[in-house]
C-alpha cells in the first residue's frame, strides 16, 4: 500500500507545486478551470510514471494509484471551488471586520461580491444572452443550458435557487 501512497503523493506534490507557482506568478479572478484540469492530468501522469518506474508495472496496482490520485485531487478541487469564489466566505470576511454589521450595509457588499455585471458580460461573451440598450434577451444557447441544468437538477434532486 505504501508504494501506492508514495506514487500518488508525488503526483499531488507536482500538481500543487505547479498550481501554486502559476497562481502566485500570475494572479487572476477567473477560476482557470481548464488550466487546473491540465495540471490534474500532469499530476496523474507523474504518479503513474513514478509507480511504474520505481515500484510495480502491474495494471491493477497502477489503477489503484490513479484512484487514490482522483481522491486527493477531488478533495482539493472541492476545497478550491468552495473557498476561492465563495460568496458566503466573502460575507464572513466582511462581518469579521466589525463585531456586527447592519443588514443594509451588507447588501451593498453582497451585490459587489457576486459581481452581477461581470457575470452578465461573461454570459454575453459566451453567447448565452444578448444585451442591447440595457435590455437583456436569452439566446438559444442559454435556453439549452437551462434545460440541461433542469434535467440534471431533477436527476440529483435539487432545484435552481441561486
Amino acid at each position, binding site marked *: *500500500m505504501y508504494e501506492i501512497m508514495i506514487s500518488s503523493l508525488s503526483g499531488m506534490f507536482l500538481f500543487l507545486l505547479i*498550481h*501554486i507557482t502559476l*497562481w*502566485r506568478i500570475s494572479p487572476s*479572478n477567473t477560476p482557470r478551470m481548464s488550466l487546473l484540469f491540465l495540471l490534474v492530468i500532469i499530476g496523474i501522469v507523474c504518479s503513474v510514471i513514478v509507480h511504474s518506474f520505481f515500484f510495480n508495472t502491474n*495494471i*491493477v*496496482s497502477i*489503477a*489503484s494509484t490513479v*484512484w*487514490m490520485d*482522483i*481522491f486527493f485531487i*477531488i478533495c482539493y478541487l*472541492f*476545497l478550491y*471551488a468552495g473557498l*476561492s*469564489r*465563495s*460568496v*458566503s*466566505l466573502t*460575507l*464572513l*470576511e466582511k*462581518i*469579521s471586520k466589525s*463585531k*456586527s*454589521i*447592519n*443588514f*443594509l450595509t*451588507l*447588501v451593498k457588499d*453582497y451585490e459587489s461580491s457576486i459581481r*452581477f455585471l461581470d*457575470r*452578465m458580460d461573461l454570459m454575453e461573451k459566451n453567447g448565452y*444572452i444578448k444585451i442591447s440598450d*440595457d*435590455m*437583456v*434577451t436569452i439566446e438559444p444557447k*442559454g*435556453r439549452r443550458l*437551462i434545460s440541461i*441544468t433542469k434535467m*440534471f*437538477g431533477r*436527476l*440529483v*434532486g435539487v*432545484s*435552481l*435557487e*441561486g
Partner: protein
Amino acid sequence: MEGPSSKWENERSVYYDFMTILFSFFISFFSLLFLILVSNTLRFLSRKKILSFPLYTESIFIFLFCIILSIFIYKSSPCLSNNINPLVGFPDHLRITTTLLFFAMFLTYLEIKSLLSRGLSLRILKDLDESNTPVKLESLKDGYGGGLGFNGLLDKRLNTIKKLGMIHYSHPTVGPLTIFGKLMNFLGALFREILKLERAE
C-alpha cells in the same frame, strides 16, 4: 523464448486484471447511484409530507449512508468480484482505493448538487428563460432569484450560514462570528492568500 501458451496466459491475466479494474470502478459508481436514488426518494417523501424532517437531518442521513456504503464496498468487494468470476482477483490495496474512489464520486455529486442549486449565473438565465420577453438590466437585478432580489437572497444566505453555526444573525443585525465562523474565515483568508485569489487587477 516465450511460447504460444505463455503468451496466451499473459493475455488472459491482462484480461482479468482489466476486469478487476472495471469492477472496482463500477462498484463505486453503482453505490453512488444507489445513494442518489435513496436521497431523492427521501426528498420526494419529504415534499409529499409523508416524512417530515429538517434540512440538516437529511444531510446527516446522506453522510451516514455514505459511510455505510463505504464500509460495504471495503468489506464486500472481494467477495462480490469472486462471485462474478473466481478468476477476477481483488487485492487489499484496491479495496482501500475503491472506497476512496467512491468518496471522490460522492464529493463530486455534492459539488454538482451545490452548483445546480446555488449557481448565480444559472439563476439569472433561468429568470430570463421564464420571462420569455427581453428584460431590463435593472429589473433583472431587482427581481433576481424569482423576485427575491438581492435583499431576499442575502437574507436566505445569511440564514443558511447561521444554520451552519458560523454567525449570529437576527435581522437587521448581522454578526458577530461564532468560533467555527472565525475558523472558517481564517482558513478561507489563508487559502486565498496562498493562491493570491481576489488580488488580480
